[in-house]
């Protein structure tokens, strides 16, 4: 954090996005180490970054967190991951109101399936092959279909009255 501020002389936007995701086939397979790792990266990581960034953020600054559709709807194989994502959504909402007196906005994007290294580094080969096909869009999003939402939520030209929101980008809704 200090290195960033020293290099650029300021900080306006924090995007918390780094995540650990590893599925389990049975609850009994979810070890303490695995559970710890997920929570450390996905919750402690966001907390550490927010805590370190906020002293440098001025009025008009923005934090954008990466949540997940799994934090909204749950996911049977991602027990720990979906729990952290639900936590990120709640943290986003709480932190937004907490930081509003300082003029800092906090929002989250909650992506559905996106074609990135995260999932092929988690799921088995068959599931990777059909990744995203259960959405109404019948395909995963590409990163460039998600990133404009971060611009929108980071820019005070676009979203100055928006804070504490969770924006799902999940390829449509299906009631089952």
């Amino acid at each position, binding site marked *: *954090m200090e*290195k*960033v501020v020293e*290099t*650029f*002389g*300021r*900080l*306006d*936007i924090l*995007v*918390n*996005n*780094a995540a*650990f995701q*590893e599925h389990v086939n049975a609850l009994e397979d979810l070890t303490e180490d695995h559970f710890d790792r997920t929570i*450390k*990266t996905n919750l*402690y*990581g*966001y907390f*550490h*970054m927010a805590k*370190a*960034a906020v002293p440098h953020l001025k009025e008009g600054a923005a934090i954008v967190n*990466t949540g997940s559709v799994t934090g909204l709807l749950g996911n049977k194989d991602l027990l720990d991951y979906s729990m952290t994502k639900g936590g990120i959504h709640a943290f986003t909402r709480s932190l937004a109101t907490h930081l509003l007196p300082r003029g800092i906005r906090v929002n989250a994007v909650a*992506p559905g399936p*996106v*074609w*990135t*290294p995260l999932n*092929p*580094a988690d*799921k*088995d*080969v068959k599931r*990777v*092959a*059909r*990744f*995203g*096909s259960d959405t109404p*869009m*019948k*395909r*995963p*999003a*590409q*990163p*460039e*279909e*998600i*990133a*404009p939402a*971060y*611009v929108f939520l*980071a*820019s005070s*030209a*676009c979203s100055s009255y928006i804070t504490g929101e969770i924006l799902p980008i999940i390829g449509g809704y299906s009631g089952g």
Partner: protein
Amino acid sequence: MARAQSHEDRTERYAAGGAEAARDERAIQATIDKTDKIARQDEKAPQTGARKYPVPPLPEQHQAKPGSEAKLDPQPMFDAPYYKGSEKLKGKVAIVTGGDSGIGRSVAVLFAREGADVAILYLDEHSDAKVTQAAVEKEGRKCITIAGDVAEAAFVVTPWKK
């Protein structure tokens, strides 16, 4: 007596009405049944984007963590060639964790296109981070990359010395 008869009449009329409604429902169903086969054939993924995006089945593949974007097939589409910047983040400085790849990489590139300098924090995917850095610089903005674990408080908060 007349009252009782009227009650029976009504009962019969309601029953007849029920039977008629059921016939109507089956008629509606029969019409829709004929269209189901046609609808099932029309289940390809809609292309809603400014360019065409890949549709499953995608190539079968699995990666060791934390995952490498360079090894993904097909390559994730992150540079949004149809997205034109309009200085929405002019002069701003952003940090993107997990900015070496995936959503983070695309966010870094579009932030740069909107006028921001970007610091990328990543775990240890050094070659992916270099690609993101080059992509940000191609947008005419500065980019620094820092490797470390955001889960480690000391990495995030420790004052940095040259």
